[in-house]
Structures are given as C-alpha cells and as structure tokens.
C-alpha cells in the first residue's frame, strides 16, 4: 500500500511577514526577542488533504540579524483513496506528531531607503513523523531559500525562491518553490495581504504530485500591537494541480524593546493599554497576559483530564481500548507541554508585577510558599506526563505490571495536576486580596 506523506508548505517568520502566508521574508525578529505561535494549517489536493494542528512555533532572536526557529506539529492526513491517483493517496487517515522543523533565519543585507533587505531562512525538517503512516518523510529534509523585502510606508512587499531538498526519501523529489507577496496596513488593527506562491512537483509520495501556483489572501488582526495577534489565510490554485491552503493561528511576541516602549517594568505596558482601552469604553479587555494565563490553566486541566481518561481506560485494558489509552496518554503529554510553555511565558514575562503586588499584600505566602512550590513541582508533573505515553506503549494486555504502572503514573499526574491548579487559585486570591485592600 502506498501512502502519501505529510509535506505542508509552511514557512515562518516575523509577525509582519511569513505566517500566515507561504511566502517568507528575510527579516529576523529583534535580538533577545521571542515569538510564539500556536496554529492549525491545511494543504489539500485531490490526492490527499494534510493538516497540522495544534502546532507550536517558537522563534528566538539569538543574535542581531539572526533568529532560531522551531515548530513542533501534530499532524493528520486524509488520503482520498481515489483509484485515479493510485498508488498515491491510498490508506486510512492517520494522526500523530509530524516532522519537527528547525531553522535559522539570517539577514545579510540591511534595508535602506533605496535598497531591500536580503536574507535566507534555512530549514531542517527532522524525521519525527511516522513515515509508514504518512505523517513524515522518514529522513531529514531541507529548505534552502533566498528572500528579499522592501517597505514603503504602510505597504510591504517581499518574496523570493528556493529549493526543497530530500536525501534517502523514496517517493519524494527535490522541487523548487517561489513566492511574492504584497500587504498593507489598514489602520492600527488590521493588515491584509495577497500572494502568489508556486511549487514544483514534490514526488509520488506527496499530495502535490504536479506543480501548482496558488493565490492566497490573508492577514493579521492585532488584539495588541505588536504583542498579540490573530493570523489567517486562505488560498486556492490559479494554475496547475487543484490545491487549497488555509492557516489560522495566534501569535505572541515579547522582548526587551517592547518593555521599554510600553513601560519600564513587567506588566506596566499591559496596565497602560488597559487604562487606554477603558477610557475608550471597551468593556471586555483581554490582554496577552490574560490569554496566556487562562491558556496555561486550561491546558493544565486538559492534561489532568486526559490522565484521568487514561486511568479509567487502563482499569479495564483490553485489545479494543489499548489504542485509546495510548492516544489519551499522548494527549496528556501534549497538554502538559503546552501548559508548561504558556506557564513559563506568563511566569517570566508577566508574573513579576503580580509577585510584587502579592508580597505587599496580606497573603505573601501565596507567592513564598504556593508559587515557589507550584513552579518547581510542575516539572515533576511534566516529566510524569511525558513518561505516560512511554509507559502506555508497553504491553498493557500481557503485563499486569505495565498496566499497574500506567495506572500509578496517571494517578500521580492527576494528583499533582490538581495540587498545582489549587495552588494557582491561592496565588490568584493572593493578588486579589492585595488589590482589594489597596496594596497596588
């Protein structure tokens, strides 16, 4: 049986360019700045539809003009099983981790009034996806592009071309790609753009068996500029093999320059924005801090519930539910990883202001005992959650010990998860009583 492989044309870069579009740009994020995306995307042809989601992306301005990049995706494929395309696009749907993308963006020509910036964004795709199930290529592959960009007031245009390179990947062939994009700021909240993106035939093991040129339309909605944005894009083939592309994601960025621009200390930028929006009569004011904190708590609860599900299923482990146990264990691990990343972002970026408030209030133990214990005990929960899928991969039918071990680990994840959620509530109350008693 032949399987198509997951090969989404995903390119990533700064908030002003790159995602949600397929064309990328040469502009790295600022030195010591970070970007975090969580997104879902889809690329479908009549042969097969491939999607990634949830996917997590982190970019780090490690050096001036250089940023490092990683995407960890969950991937899903839906082969069409259409005999016209056989042997491509045959087999059942599959879901699991996809190929992890790591990259280095390097800008080697700076933009001036009359000269565009020029750079490259080399990607290394690690073979973490299961190639037999069509979730990955099966060996490391590369993207080597050259991008240029120029801005004119509210207009920005960028584009370039490159080559995707495979080695020891039967069914895949090296192929060229190229794209060009124009976008414009429409006021302070919205940026819209459109691109033309071409790729060559990618090989019989992929859904993109023939070349295609797509026209995509998308943009950004800035909840907070530049800290927190919604990214969206949709596109369709104009020339070549029928293909659809879609992207929906959330984006956060933070770093030293943002602190200086928005306030002198952590949280002060948020306070200024909240005040301004209150003045404009906006009742519901959700900032990046709120969204990240709520996301952290929500994924923590999801991870705990997933562990509870694993426990309930493992009590009666049998051939019919082993796959469900393993999927539940994987969900617990992924949820706890997301909770950890979001919690870490919030703890480092936004908590210092709340900590100062708590320490001045009537419940300093909310930080000194509960937060200090919570932030370190969480690593135990994370390790246990990461271990759960490993233990669940054992022979749960034939080995009583393996089943009992999974039950024990699930219970430990549940207990520590609940303890951490409880500690979070105490910390929140510590800040609340400090505010209510006028210690802000």
């Amino acid at each position, binding site marked *: 049986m032949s399987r198509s492989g997951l090969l989404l044309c995903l390119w990533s870069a700064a908030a002003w360019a790159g995602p949600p579009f397929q064309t990328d740009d040469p502009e790295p994020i600022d030195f010591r700045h970070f970007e975090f995306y969580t997104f879902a995307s889809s690329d479908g042809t009549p042969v097969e539809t491939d999607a990634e989601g949830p996917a997590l992306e982190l970019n780090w301005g490690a050096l001036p003009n250089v940023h490092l990049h990683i995407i960890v995706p969950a991937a899903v494929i839906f082969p069409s099983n259409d005999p016209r395309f056989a042997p491509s696009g045959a087999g059942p749907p599959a879901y699991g981790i996809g190929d992890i993308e790591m990259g280095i963006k390097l800008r080697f020509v700076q933009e001036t009034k009359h000269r565009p910036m020029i750079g490259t964004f080399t990607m290394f795709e690690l073979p973490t996806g299961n190639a037999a199930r069509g979730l990955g290529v099966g060996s490391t592959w590369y993207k080597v592009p050259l991008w240029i960009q120029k801005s004119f007031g509210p207009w920005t245009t960028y584009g370039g071309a490159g080559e995707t390179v495979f080695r020891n990947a039967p069914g895949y062939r090296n192929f060229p790609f190229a794209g060009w994009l124009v976008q414009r700021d429409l006021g302070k909240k919205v940026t819209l753009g459109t691109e033309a993106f071409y790729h060559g035939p990618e090989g019989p093991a992929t859904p993109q068996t023939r070349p295609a040129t797509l026209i995509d339309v998308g943009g950004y909605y800035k909840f907070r500029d530049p800290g927190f944005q919604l990214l969206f894009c949709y596109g369709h083939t104009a020339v070549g093999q029928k293909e659809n592309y879609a992207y929906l994601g959330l984006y956060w960025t933070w770093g030293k320059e943002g602190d200086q621009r928005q306030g002198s200390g952590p949280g002060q930028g948020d306070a200024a924005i909240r005040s301004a929006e209150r003045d404009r009569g906006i009742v519901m004011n959700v900032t990046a801090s709120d969204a990240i904190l709520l996301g952290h708590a929500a994924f923590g609860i999801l991870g705990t519930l997933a562990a509870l599900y694993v426990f309930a299923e493992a009590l009666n482990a049998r051939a019919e539910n082993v796959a469900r146990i393993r999927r539940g264990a994987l969900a617990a691990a992924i949820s706890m990883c997301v909770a950890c990343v979001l919690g870490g972002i919030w703890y*480092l970026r936004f908590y210092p202001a709340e900590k100062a408030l708590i320490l001045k209030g009537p419940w300093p133990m909310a930080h000194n005992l509960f937060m200090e214990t919570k932030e370190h005990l969480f690593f135990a929960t994370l390790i*246990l959650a990461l271990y759960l899928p*490993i233990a669940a991969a054992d022979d749960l039918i034939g080995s*009583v010990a393996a089943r009992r071990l999974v039950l024990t680990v699930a219970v*430990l994840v549940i207990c*520590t998860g609940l303890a951490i959620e409880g500690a979070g509530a105490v910390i929140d109350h510590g800040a609340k009583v400090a505010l209510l008693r006028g210690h802000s």
Partner: protein
Amino acid sequence: MTADAGRLNRATAAFGAAAAMVILFNTVLACVKDAYAPLLRFMNSIAGHNWTTQGLADLVLFFGLGLVLMRTGWTDKIHGQSLASWLAAAVVLAGVGLAAWYLLF
C-alpha cells in the same frame, strides 16, 4: 503472577527510573539554587532565568538518562511494582520536600 505479568519493556523501565531520578534531582536543585546564590546566578546566565534552565536540565536529564539506561542491562531487573513505588515515593518526597523548604526557609 507469572514472570511475564511482572515484566516491563526496556523503554518503560529505563524512562520510569529516569523519571523518578529526575523528580528527585529537580527537588534537590530547587533547594540548592535557593540556598547557594552563585548557582542561581549561573542558572540565570544560561537561559535567561533559573526556572527555564532548571526545566531544560530536567528534560535533558530525563531523555538522556532514559536513553542511557535503555542501553544497560540494569533495567531488566526492575519490576513494575517496584518502579511504581519509586515513582510514587519520588513525587511524595518532591511535594513534601518543596513545600517544607519554602515554608521553613
């Protein structure tokens, strides 16, 4: 219980043992960095914040130790019930130890 019923595969045993060790290591590191300022400064300098460094160290140790233990025959001697007890004990020690440390010191 038969011999097979109590057996774990190598990955389960190795990463389980690694998890128990890392949970204890994490607890000890939290206390030591709090008590020894040069270590705290060193950890701050590595990843920008000591908490980030500690998390990365835990993850590297977990996966590294798990892979190393998988290659040894030592994991063949680990019984499932014992491993479950080690993990439970490590988590209880971590929870009580961390709370006691921040409560008393």
